[in-house]
């Protein structure tokens, strides 16, 4: 049996330079990880090294730097392919982020599959990036935009989902984990049901990639999108996995250099996968930073990190429950490391301002998920979200700040 290495939080924190800083003369307590995560030294160094020693344009040149850059870049692609267990690295498309990936799919997969009168389904807990592109596709094509309802506990109403499946939507797109409610959706089951009718399923993995090991073959999802910056990697890089059969059939999204084969005045032919969907010069340093982040995570161990974060979230829920008048928004059975809450009639903006001045970074507002706010009839929430470098002491500091804000604003 493999020896379990205990999670050494002190050693982990030392890897993240941004955590050292003071904010309003208080040690930073960074609890806004669902928005973006801090980066470990190895990732920062990798980006720096690219620009100091390796910078060149890849895939095009025959000179040494270009060759080395190309090898490094394609190695990174293979690392990502292994990380989420795809069949082939041709199924890994690098984009700018999850928003970019969803727009790509709405445009390209949308063109392939959706006609006037057809339907596309999402859920009511989606982030705007996995809601608006599909909605606008439906507006443009005069198709039906179906939205699966959300229960009082903040979970997808599976009866409603099954009902909407009967309308045979052409595409279904679902968040794996809600960025507001913390809910982990039963996507394996939802995908299985959709596949009974051969409906392709897109998974928004922006919040789940950092929470658990992803195996796209086990999930059997048709597409899976996530962003580097939410998993300790640089901003400006996203990964879109798509089953090869779909990516082959889909028309290109953006046109230009890199994604072409032959170009003449009369006609142009397109490059093979994955390059067909990677027009222009990629964000090479960010992709290499993503590879470093993956290696970093795997060195510490996905399971160790997941187990530690689970302990953090349970502790946070338990301590927050002590606050008078607290109301959790979303009480799912299966929760990732996001907690949204309100306190009595206190406006989250006011509480957020006070908590900010105590050196604590949380997020307030609608979190780019206005439909779920409307469903619960609230202007916004306060949201705390955790990463591998947060501590139990930070949770104590956070809860004390919440209590102080509640007192000042009552």
């Amino acid at each position, binding site marked *: 049996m493999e020896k379990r290495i205990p999670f050494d939080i002190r050693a982990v924190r030392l890897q993240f330079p941004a955590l050292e800083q003071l904010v309003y003369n208080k040690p930073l307590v960074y609890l806004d990880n669902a928005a973006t995560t801090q980066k470990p030294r190895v990732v920062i160094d990798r980006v720096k090294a690219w620009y100091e020693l390796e910078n060149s344009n890849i895939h095009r040149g025959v000179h040494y730097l270009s060759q080395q850059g190309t090898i490094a870049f394609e190695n990174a692609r293979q690392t990502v392919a292994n990380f989420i267990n795809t069949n082939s690295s041709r199924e890994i498309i690098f984009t700018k982020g999850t928003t970019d990936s969803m727009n790509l799919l709405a445009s390209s997969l949308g063109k392939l599959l959706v006609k006037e009168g057809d339907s596309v389904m999402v859920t009511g807990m989606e982030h705007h990036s996995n809601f608006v592109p599909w909605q606008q596709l439906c507006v443009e094509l005069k198709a039906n935009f179906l939205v699966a309802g959300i229960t009082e506990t903040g979970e997808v109403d599976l009866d409603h989902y099954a009902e909407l499946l009967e309308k045979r939507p052409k595409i279904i797109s679902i968040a794996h984990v809600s960025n507001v409610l913390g809910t982990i959706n039963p996507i394996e089951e939802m995908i299985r049901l959709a596949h009974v009718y051969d409906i392709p399923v897109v998974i928004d993995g922006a919040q789940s990639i950092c929470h658990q090991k992803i195996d796209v073959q086990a999930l059997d999802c048709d597409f899976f999108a996530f962003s580097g910056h939410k998993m300790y990697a640089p901003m400006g890089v996203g990964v879109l996995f798509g089953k090869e059969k779909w990516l082959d059939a889909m028309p290109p999204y953006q046109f230009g250099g890199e994604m072409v084969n032959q170009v003449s005045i009369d006609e142009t032919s397109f490059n093979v996968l994955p390059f067909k969907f990677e027009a222009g010069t990629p964000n090479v340093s960010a992709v290499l930073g993503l590879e470093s982040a993956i290696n970093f995570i795997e060195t510490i161990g996905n399971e160790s990190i997941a187990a530690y974060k689970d302990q953090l979230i349970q502790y946070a829920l338990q301590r927050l429950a002590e606050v008078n008048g607290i109301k959790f928004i979303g009480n799912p059975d299966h929760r990732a490391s996001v907690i949204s809450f309100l306190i009595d009639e206190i*406006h989250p*903006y*006011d509480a957020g301002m006070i908590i900010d001045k105590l050196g604590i970074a949380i997020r307030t507002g609608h979190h780019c998920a206005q439909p779920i706010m409307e469903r619960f009839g609230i*202007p916004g929430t306060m949201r705390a979200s955790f990463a591998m470098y947060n501590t139990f002491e930070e949770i104590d500091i956070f809860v004390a700040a919440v209590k102080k804000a509640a007192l000042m*604003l009552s």
Partner: protein
Amino acid sequence: MTIEQTQQQIIEEFSIFDDWMEKYNYLIEMGKDCPIIETQYKTNNYLINGCQSRVWLHAYFDRDIVHFSADSDAVITKGIVNLLIRVFNDHSPEEILKSDTTFLDQIGLKEHLSPTRSNGLLSMVKQMKLYAQIFQLKVNQQVNE
């Protein structure tokens, strides 16, 4: 008191506070004194939308001076709204148009008016100036008649 004098008074009031909590406490108290917008004006027509907190503003023009009333669903925003009303209320359009809000920088509240803050305050200041401009036009019209 002139607008500048009111602004100076506010700067002095805030100068006694050592830290943010004291400032926020004072703002919360100040919000309670805000001339509250009449119910009939607390509608979408008078709503200045921010991303996170909402602000309603109404103004009328009487005997050459402008009268503002407002409300917000967030109490800190309401406190800052009241500061602005304290400064601009009961003055002529011309005086309002001539002045600015840099006094908020001096009491450390500049961040609340940045476009990224999205709390409706920046838009509210613009709206106050717009009201002043419209009332100034009325004054000019009367003079021309």
